[in-house]
């Protein structure tokens, strides 16, 4: 975590995976792992497809994906890592094919990407609705001559997308009257083209979800014959939001902080009644509050600010929602804030460090600590579970 909100000039890597398991299996044999390395401005992801299905496939896939991620993370060569994994993991005696196939992606925020594929369908690279074909370098395993890895080095431009999948996607519908040879990579390319031309703003999460779903629709009688996974990587100019919460420590700097807040070049959120009153006063902007509804105070409306909510209770609820997304249709300030977080790539918090006098009595001695703790926990979960970039500044 870096201190002090700043606009990041490098690209943001939006990566997500969507999976549907083979019908009647209780776990997925495809495993997707990804890790963001903020300091190195880099994301590493692995999609591995364990042999067979169910729990055995899942364990094989997990082992492969975890080992690859660790190796690449430590700066080791993917080629060598793959050899070691081939040596380590069991080979199916009957089929003479091994453990699991995989795709490893090592993507830097300047757009340079290395992709290594072993057995998985070839990735799809989309630019402005056109499919770009990349030339692989073929690496034959020193020990297993039947095994070939494809290595690609490509440079992505802003708004390019990469689509990776397990063979559950390309072979969807195999043997059905309509699609004897399955959906195939060409089907995937055509579908992605149409989707992206119609919805150029699609998030990686949504694009992956739609592709996986489309693949399973190709299956006969809704019987999904294989685990079906799609991972999408999108590099784009980051979308940012700044959250101002808590009154600043030095009252004399209220104006400076309010100005800095309103000039932020992204979405803007205020969490806290006192904070909202400060900004409203300093910038001379009217604010109207709505009725509370249910067990959270309502929101307020202020020109130029995307969301104005109450502070601690709402933030605490947001944390709950981020940990366990609510299943029923809930509409409260916390849901609105959580969705703003989901829509943005870089999330900055300006946390006022002034103790609210109201709580500065024996019953409320720890308000500031609560605010800091809640914000830190939100920041952690946004970074770890949702792969966002988060910055916190105390003012």
């Amino acid at each position, binding site marked *: 975590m870096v201190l002090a909100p700043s606009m990041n000039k490098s690209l943001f890597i939006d990566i997500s995976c969507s999976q549907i398991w083979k019908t009647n299996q209780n776990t997925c044999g495809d495993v997707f792992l990804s890790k963001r390395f903020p300091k190195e401005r880099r994301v590493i992801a692995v999609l591995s497809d364990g042999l067979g299905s169910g729990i055995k496939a899942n364990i094989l896939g997990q082992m492969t994906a975890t080992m690859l991620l660790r190796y690449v993370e430590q700066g080791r060569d993917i080629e060598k890592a793959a050899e070691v994994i081939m040596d380590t993991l069991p080979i199916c005696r009957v089929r003479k094919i091994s453990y699991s196939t995989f795709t490893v992606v090592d993507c830097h925020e300047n757009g340079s990407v290395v992709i290594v594929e072993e057995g998985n369908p070839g990735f799809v690279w989309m630019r402005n609705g056109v499919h770009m074909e990349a030339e692989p370098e073929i690496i034959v395993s020193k020990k297993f001559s039947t095994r070939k890895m494809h290595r690609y080095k490509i440079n992505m431009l802003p708004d390019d997308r990469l689509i990776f999948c397990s063979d559950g996607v390309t072979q969807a519908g195999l043997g059905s009257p309509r699609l004897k040879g399955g959906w195939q990579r060409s089907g995937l390319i055509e579908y992605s083209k149409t989707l992206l031309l119609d919805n150029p703003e699609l998030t990686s999460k949504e694009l992956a979800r739609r592709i996986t779903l489309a693949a399973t629709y190709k299956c006969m009688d809704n019987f999904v014959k294989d685990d079906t996974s799609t991972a999408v990587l999108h590099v784009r100019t980051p979308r940012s939001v700044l959250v101002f919460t808590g009154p600043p420590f030095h009252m004399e700097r209220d104006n400076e902080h309010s100005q800095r807040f309103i000039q932020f070049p992204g979405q803007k959120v205020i969490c*806290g*009644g*006192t904070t*909202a*009153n400060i900004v409203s006063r300093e910038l001379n902007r009217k*604010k109207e*509050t*709505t*009725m*509370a*509804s249910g*067990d959270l*105070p*309502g929101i*307020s409306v202020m020109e130029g600010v995307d969301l*104005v909510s*109450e*502070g*601690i*209770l709402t933030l605490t609820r947001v944390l709950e929602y981020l940990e366990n997304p609510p299943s029923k249709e809930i509409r409260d300030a916390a849901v609105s804030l959580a969705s703003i977080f989901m829509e943005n790539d870089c999330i900055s918090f300006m946390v006022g460090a002034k103790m*609210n*006098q*109201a*709580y500065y*009595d024996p019953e*409320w001695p720890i308000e500031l600590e609560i605010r800091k703790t809640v914000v830190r926990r939100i920041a952690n979960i946004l970074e770890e579970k949702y792969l966002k970039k988060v910055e916190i500044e105390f003012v």
Partner: protein
Amino acid sequence: MKKIDVEICFGTTCFVLGGSHLQELENSLDNDLKEKINIIPQNCLGLCKNENYSQAPYVKVNGQIIDRATIEKVINKIKCEINE
């Protein structure tokens, strides 16, 4: 007749100290009273910061502070205002 302003505080302190119930104020009023008042939700009336007023939740009826506000207290105050 000018409507009576009823400012209900939904700031954190007021909300957790019982103010959340005040959402129901409007539903507890008969139509006659409803027409005579103007409900204005607020996100902190600033009273919780003043030791003398450390008796949240707060409501202001025509600018007059009601501390430890309940629906009943607020309705009584509104009625007083109308009768004046």
